[in-house]
């Protein structure tokens, strides 16, 4: 029943490793996002895909690479993890209405990444 699901919920890994976070939505939405929330609760958008096309690509290190195999999935792969990558990562999805993006976004439960 979960609308937007992310796995894993917790991820602890060592510096230098490569890891992936998966996101799936069953809402039939055509737009998906990745956000990063730091320790001060500030939420910053990283990427957005619309119908598998990259729409928003904020200034993030190129160690972060999103992959959207289909409209229902948007995975986040992170290479060479660094201590500063520790944060909570949220996946979200939204539907377009016509050509506008005036709908609400639905969020996954977040993935708490800790790099040690």
């Amino acid at each position, binding site marked *: 029943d979960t609308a937007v699901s992310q796995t894993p919920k917790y991820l602890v890994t060592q510096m230098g490793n490569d890891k992936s976070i998966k996101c799936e939505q069953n809402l039939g939405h055509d737009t998906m996002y990745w956000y990063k929330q730091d320790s001060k*609760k*500030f*939420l910053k*958008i990283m990427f957005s895909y619309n119908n598998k096309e990259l729409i928003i690509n904020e200034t993030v290190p190129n160690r972060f690479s999103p992959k959207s195999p289909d409209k229902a999935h948007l995975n986040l792969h992170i290479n060479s993890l660094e201590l500063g990558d520790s944060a909570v990562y949220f996946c979200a999805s939204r539907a377009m209405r016509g*050509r506008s993006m005036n*709908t*609400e976004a639905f969020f996954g*439960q977040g993935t*708490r990444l800790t790099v040690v």
Partner: protein
Amino acid sequence: AQKVTQAQTEISVVEKEDVTLDCVYETRDTTYYLFWYKQPPSGELVFLIRRNSFDEQNEISGRYSWNFQKSTSSFNFTITASQVVDSAVYFCLPLLGLAKDRKLIWGLGTSLAVNP
């Protein structure tokens, strides 16, 4: 510049008190949407309400009510008879413009603590 201001960073109330969370935004867009989200201590992001710039009717949902004043660019949120479960960080977000590359602009929110 387009931005949102939630001047109250932290609010602490006693259960059953009414509390109003302020939200003031700036935009030159004529068409925009405003959202409120809630992030309880468990960490998930929960959508509460969406309001478009053409609809100034106030909205009530149970103990929650929203007062949208376009003339003062404010979209305030009131919780009546607050409960401990209302403790969370609340985010007011504008979505400015409707193009698919538009982004929700996240601030630091207002942290509400409802004490028994």
